[in-house]
């Protein structure tokens, strides 16, 4: 029995990437092998990660890489999302003429980066993994080379991401300066007996926090999101909204719990920190929900909606800062949100491409007549986004709200609830267009492959089933603490 056994999913994943690339080189004339091997890789990883049983967290590689229930679960989620996207958007890629082997290689590397990111217990590893995740993302964002908007999205994402990467690194160097280490566990130990002037540590912490607030697009660091979402290929946007956000949120949670804030030395700073998260959460909620109702572009709308969802997750994180065992509300939120977003983006990717124009809301008019099944799917996902009952969206909000109420943040819950009402308008509007209006002649055609329909159906089934019987999910995620 090897010491590395818990890491098998990750190792298999890396091997899979290499094999996929090798196979692609051998069969250079077609993209099919890349697709199949990418799928295989993800499936194998998924099974491995589900079969790995980590009762207690295991630190590997001198403690920089920690495998715990959280990371294996998250890896399963990431792989599942990857599988969904690969199956669901295959037709979209062909339509957009970007169905290349490279796409799959980059996608795999991106997911690998994300999967390492969630395990990282070292700031340097975090940085490198972040870049492993981001570099393919920048490239994939610019994959629709026929469309200058795609290019623009990639460049914007790249520049902003680069600067923020430098900010992260500066923060890491400050923390290194303050503590003499970049290991999170050592930093935690250090914090328990930290004394004296801790400004350097605080500033470093704030800087890395900011860089991850940027990654999860919390206001006021959200500017990149709508532009990048709109310009990127829909399948990539979906990956960003699910895989990358999930990983970033997990890291954000780790960063928020970087030190032992129970120690009296750190208490004042901790209060400030909570205040900061509160402000970010409220701003994200308000601004996200307020803008989302003004949007006409579907992907932009989803971008702003994800900004407002960031607000909810931040509320959940706030709850976990007050009471660490409430972190499971964040996990449930991430899980549910990823699922419904995945379904939505696969649905969005079913629209026929139009020259120099994105998928507009107006394209949905009259879908009821053309594709009643899809209307049901759209409605389910959108209702889930709005937090209506019998969808997982209700329970995601439920746990965030109740954890915030539990920790005394009732006022912010009220704000969040009001924002939910405002953004519900935005989610209802597409449904209204689909159901109430006859098709606009300028509306785009919607065609999905059997594969994408089935992906949508499966994720819808999960969204619905978990909305009715969330027991298993709650049970699974409630037992996952955030380890220090």
């Amino acid at each position, binding site marked *: 029995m090897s010491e590395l056994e818990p890491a098998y999913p990750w190792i298999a994943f890396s091997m899979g990437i290499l094999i996929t690339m090798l196979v692609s080189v051998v069969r250079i004339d077609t993209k099919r092998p890349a697709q199949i091997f990418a799928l295989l890789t993800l499936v194998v990883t998924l099974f491995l990660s589900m079969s790995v049983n980590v009762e207690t967290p295991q630190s590997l590689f001198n403690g920089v890489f920690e495998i715990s229930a959280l990371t294996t679960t998250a890896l399963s989620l990431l792989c599942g999302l990857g599988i969904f996207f690969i199956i669901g958007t295959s037709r979209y890629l062909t339509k957009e003429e970007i169905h290349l082997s490279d796409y799959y290689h980059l996608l795999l590397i991106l997911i690998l980066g994300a999967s390492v990111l969630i395990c990282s217990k070292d700031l340097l590893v975090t940085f490198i993994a972040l870049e492993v995740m981001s570099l393919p993302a920048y490239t994939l964002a610019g994959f629709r080379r026929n469309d200058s908007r795609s290019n623009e999205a990639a460049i914007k994402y790249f520049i902003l991401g680069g600067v923020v990467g430098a900010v992260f690194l500066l923060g890491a160097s400050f923390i290194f300066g303050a503590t003499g280490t970049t290991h999170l566990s050592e930093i935690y130990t250090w914090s328990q007996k930290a004394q004296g002037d801790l400004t350097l540590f605080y500033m470093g912490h704030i800087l890395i926090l900011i860089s991850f607030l940027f990654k999860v697009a919390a206001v006021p660091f959200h500017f990149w999101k709508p532009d990048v979402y709109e310009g990127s290929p829909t399948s990539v946007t979906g990956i960003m909204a699910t895989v990358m956000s999930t990983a970033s949120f997990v890291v954000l949670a780790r960063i928020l719990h970087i030190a032992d804030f129970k120690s009296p030395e750190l208490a004042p700073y901790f209060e400030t920190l909570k205040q900061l998260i509160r402000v970010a959460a409220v701003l994200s909620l308000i601004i996200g929900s307020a803008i989302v109702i003004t949007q006409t572009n579907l992907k932009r709308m989803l971008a702003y909606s994800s900004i407002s969802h960031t607000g909810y997750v931040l509320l959940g994180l706030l709850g976990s800062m007050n009471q660490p065992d409430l972190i499971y509300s964040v996990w449930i939120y991430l899980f549910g949100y990823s699922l419904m977003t995945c379904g939505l983006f696969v649905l969005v990717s079913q629209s026929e491409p139009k020259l120099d124009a994105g998928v507009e809301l107006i394209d949905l008019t009259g879908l*009821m007549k053309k594709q*009643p099944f899809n209307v049901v799917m759209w409605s389910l996902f959108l*209702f889930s986004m709005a937090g*209506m*009952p*019998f969808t997982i969206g*209700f329970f995601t909000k*439920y746990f965030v*709200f*109740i954890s915030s*109420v*539990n920790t005394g943040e*009732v006022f912010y*819950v*009220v704000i969040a*609830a*009001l924002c*939910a*009402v405002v953004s*519900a*308008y935005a989610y*209802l*509007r597409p*449904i*209204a267009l689909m*159901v*109430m209006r006859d098709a606009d002649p300028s509306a785009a055609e919607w065609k999905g492959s059997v594969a994408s329909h089935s992906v949508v159906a499966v994720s819808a089934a999960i969204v619905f089933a978990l909305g009715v019987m*969330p*027991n298993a999910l*709650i*049970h699974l995620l*409630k037992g996952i603490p955030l380890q220090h």
Partner: protein
Amino acid sequence: MVNYNSLTVLLTVPLVASMLAWFIPKGIQRLYAVFSSLCILALTLYQAAPVLFASTSAAVIEHKLAWLPEIGVSLNFRLDSVSGWFVALNAIVAILAFSLKGVWYRKNPRLFTSLGFFLVSALNTAFLSADLIVFYLAYEAVFIPMIFMVGIWGEQAKATAVFRFFLMSFLGSVLMLVSIFYLVNLYHEQSGIYSSNLFDLIQATAGKNSPNLKWCFIGFFLAFAIKVPLFPFHGWLKDVYTLAPMPATIWMSAILSKLGVFGFIRFVSPIFVESSQGYQGILLTLAAISVVYAAFLAIRSNDSKSLLAYSSVSHLGFVMMGVFTFNPGGNASAILLSVGHTLVSAMLFYILHLIQERQTDLGLETSHGFAKLYPTLFTVFFIAVLASMSLPGTLNFAGEFLVLIHSYAASALCTIISGVGVILGAVYMLKFYQQLGFGKNTTVTINSNTGAKDLAGYDLVVLSVLVLMLIYFGFQPEIFLKGN
């Protein structure tokens, strides 16, 4: 006396009916729907008989199923003298709503039937649940079919109406949700376990009167006041009532509004004993204003449906007077009046639809003189109008009389103000009936696609049964009062 009984069938059977609708040929959907709702009524009466026909109000049927043990939410169904009648009414209203012929049986009939039964199921769940979270879920779920019904089969320009309806209701209900969370947390703080059971929460708030509880009360109040609706939260009502297809209007005015009434009786008054006593004056004033204000608006209405919409608000104001007495007698009479209002408003909209089938122009600026053309229909219509004006001998009189006699003890002034509504009620109902029925029939706008003459056949049977119920229970309301 507690009688354990499987109440779940009351929600599962409509749900099954909702799914079965997709396998029924389109041509016989109406038959199917009416027959199934009759079966549901029979089932309801059979299930609820031990409570409904018991001699005291203490009879209770309870049924508990575990659902989300992690968070203390259970399917705790409770059929007692409060919820029993609403459940029965729900089945009756379903029969009426499904009985109407119209565009909904031509365009997507399966969807209509399916949504309708879903609505029935959701409403039953809401009425039966003694668990606040489950209640909330069902309360929200009611929107979904409603939105689709109005959206798909409504008249032109319905989008704004639907949005208003949805957003206002949603606003109220999310605030209620936050309040529920607060209460759940309160109980958690006291007992260490999570529970959203009504009786646990009653225990949690017993004898307390903190400012936060007042805010919670306001949250609940808003939710239900918007639902009823109570002045000044009625802004959504007119448009959506007017533009909705008739079955949806029937559902909304007859039974959805009762959700609010039910909520006040079931949840607000036992949980917030102190606050409801404290705010009783304001509440009664609002109810009285509702009565008079809506009556004035009804007088001004030149459209049959909006007149009925406002009359509904006005009468619900009376119901709320009874509810806001916060004593058993007042509540029992409010339930009695609710029954009356349900039957009468459903009947009036039903009749209006029958007239609409025959005549297209139903504006109230001119008198139409249809009474001569359809003597039976207008006889029944007149009886409904009389009941709506709560003429003695009808169920509504018994209800209104008992309500006012109880509210007089609470606030003489408000009772007298709302008494003015009795006079105004006569003004607008007579105007309504006269403009349609009396005068010379000069307008020849006979709806050509229905050869329907006078009331006959199925409609006659249905309406006669309703008339008999109104009059019979007008003299024998004991069954609803149970010696309270």
